[in-house]
């Protein structure tokens, strides 16, 4: 962390909002913040949070382990064990803060980068790697942890979340639904349609947009001429921009939006203003489209370091704690590495599995043909 980049700037209390009206995408966004980049606790008039040291350490642990898991997956991709990886580096606070706001009976619709949210839902991280290793296209039972399959087509899942939330309302349940998407997805028609449907039907859904500033190589300015959270107003529901690198603010804002949904007051759009520290996926090269100084500036806002500073300053965690957590991180990485390497290739016949629930004559025919073809090798003794 470079202190220089932030030293000149006085820690800004979010109660003193800086106007973002002058230009479409202000570098000083109007956002909810409860923990400054320097680890200073600040208050916000609308969003309060009061956590025990245990809970604070829990959030810290979640972020550290998620980052370690993510780093390990990136390494596994570089070693050829995964075909691709979409890193969440830098977005830990947005994901852990929002993820820890959820109740067990809430339902999550992620993109393909919500590894931290999956962690909060109790999804075994190794389950997330199957699709990136190429052994399945999802592979977990979404109903076990109320965590839907990763969705790769940008923004599609916001409609699934809205429909699911409409069903929740029909059932008279008081659970809520959260849909994750990025700033790039905000350009998709499906996201606009999900805003329309959720508003019209007053669906208990929270739209959690992680504006990580880049949609592969396209900046947010290429997606929108108004701050994203302001779009909600045009659809008739509230939008709020939160410091996406502040886990406390993300937790408080998401909790509030979920409670609003539970009360039957409809959707909320949360724009978590954050930064993707790495590449979009392991396939692209950020040095081709963005400058190092931008990344350096955001490093100063690192979500994990700021909570660590706060924990240390408040005396909530000592060196022994951090050392133990480092050890736990290494154990997690080891477990993930071993699990990925041990992950078996699927059986050849899996091509034909679960194409249809009720069967299909053509699939049956082709399955039989393929089985006979495979068997012919065995007969030839190959």
């Amino acid at each position, binding site marked *: 962390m470079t202190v220089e980049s932030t030293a000149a700037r006085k820690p800004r209390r979010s109660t003193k909002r800086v106007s973002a009206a002058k230009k479409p995408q202000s570098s000083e966004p109007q956002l909810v913040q409860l923990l400054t980049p320097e680890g200073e606790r600040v208050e916000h008039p609308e969003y309060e949070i009061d956590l025990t040291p245990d809970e604070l350490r829990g959030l810290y642990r979640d972020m550290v382990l998620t980052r370690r898991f993510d780093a390990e997956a990136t390494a596994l991709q570089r070693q050829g064990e995964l075909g691709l990886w979409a890193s969440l580096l830098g977005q830990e606070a947005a994901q852990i803060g929002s993820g820890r706001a959820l109740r067990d009976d809430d339902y999550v619709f992620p993109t393909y980068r919500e590894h931290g949210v999956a962690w909060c839902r109790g999804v075994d991280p190794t389950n997330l790697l199957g699709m990136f290793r190429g052994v399945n296209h999802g592979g977990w039972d*979404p109903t076990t942890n109320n965590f839907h399959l990763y969705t790769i087509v940008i923004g599609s899942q916001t*409609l699934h979340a*809205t429909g*699911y939330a409409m069903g929740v309302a029909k059932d008279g349940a008081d659970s809520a639904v959260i849909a994750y998407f990025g700033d790039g997805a905000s350009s998709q028609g499906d996201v606009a349609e999900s805003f329309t449907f959720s508003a019209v039907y007053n669906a208990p859904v929270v739209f959690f947009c992680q504006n990580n500033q880049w949609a592969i190589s396209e900046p947010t300015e290429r997606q929108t001429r108004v701050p994203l959270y302001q779009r909600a107003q045009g659809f008739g529901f509230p939008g709020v921009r939160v410091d996406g690198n502040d886990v406390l603010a993300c937790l408080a804002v998401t909790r509030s939006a979920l409670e609003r949904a539970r009360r039957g007051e409809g959707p909320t759009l949360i724009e978590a203003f954050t930064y993707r520290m790495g590449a979009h996926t392991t396939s692209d090269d950020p040095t081709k489209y963005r400058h190092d100084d931008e990344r350096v500036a955001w490093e100063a806002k690192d979500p994990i370091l700021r909570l660590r500073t706060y924990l240390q300053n408040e005396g909530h965690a000592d060196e022994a704690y951090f050392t133990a957590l480092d050890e736990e991180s290494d154990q997690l990485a080891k477990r993930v590495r071993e699990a990925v390497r041990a992950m078996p290739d699927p059986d050849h016949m899996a091509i034909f599995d679960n194409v249809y629930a009720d069967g*299909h004559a*053509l699939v049956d025919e082709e399955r039989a043909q393929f089985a006979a073809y495979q068997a012919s090798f065995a007969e030839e003794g190959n």
Partner: protein
Amino acid sequence: MAVQKLPLAKALNESLRKALDTDPKVLIMGEDVGKLGGVFRVTDGLQKDFGEDRVIDTPLAESGIVGTAIGLALRGYRPVVEIQFDGFVFPAYDQIVTQLAKMHARALGKIKMPVVIRIPYGGGIGAVEHHSESPEALFAHVPGLKVISPSNSSDAYWMLQQAIQSDDPVIFFEPKRRYWDKSDVDVEAIPGPLHKARVAQVGSDITLAAYGPMVKVCVEAAAAAAEEGKSVEVLDLRSMSPIDFDTIQTSVEKTGRLIVVHEAPVFYGSGAEIAARITERCFYHLEAPVLRVGGYHAPYPPARLEEEYLPGLDRVLDAVDRSLAY
């Protein structure tokens, strides 16, 4: 009375009524399906009887309709979605192809997608652009979808209920120019398997295979051919995915000749698939190449030209002559 003579659209209406009545998880969704009862009145009176919570008027957004139906299915509902016209399905095509069709497989079978998408399709009603197309091949090509089309009121009544009961996504193509044709519906019958073809007309010289709106044309062609002493067998395929090739094979082994008739463009159409498979299965039984009669590789024409574009009696009979000439 168990047997009633109903227009096809009314049979669909009765079918939806029965489904709503039988299963509280069944929902109807679409543009104008509520108060108006749909532009073809297929959902007429359903919202009045089952309420706005079961028969849901939606915003005008096809991707939104299908996308939210997927979410409702994940929550345990069985949405029956109406797309107003064939040419309007494309904004929803992404949700249907990339999401709906694959969800069951991606979850390794742990979740099911019981969504029915009703699409009035085909021409012959003098409509404007985007209101007369036959895009069934675009859906039949997609693994994970089932594609069916009734040609008469009885099938309309039963196939729709079977589609709703299916745990797979079903694209249900309704032949809009047959909506007003009346035929018998036995509401107490035990329906046959959903994907089995029906012999609509028994014959011995040549087989015509059709579905949806073209079945009637083929039956009329068979009657006309009979006057010339030709015995034409007509198959109503009923299902385009899967296709009941066994029934086609049995017929072709008897007649030695096959013509596939559909409204959709011939190029890459379902006729191509049937011709290829039947050539594989029946090569030594065929007396002539499998012929196809259908639309041209051109946008569906303006209404004043559609009679030229659509396969009619003469074009079908011409193909019969060509086949028999081998």
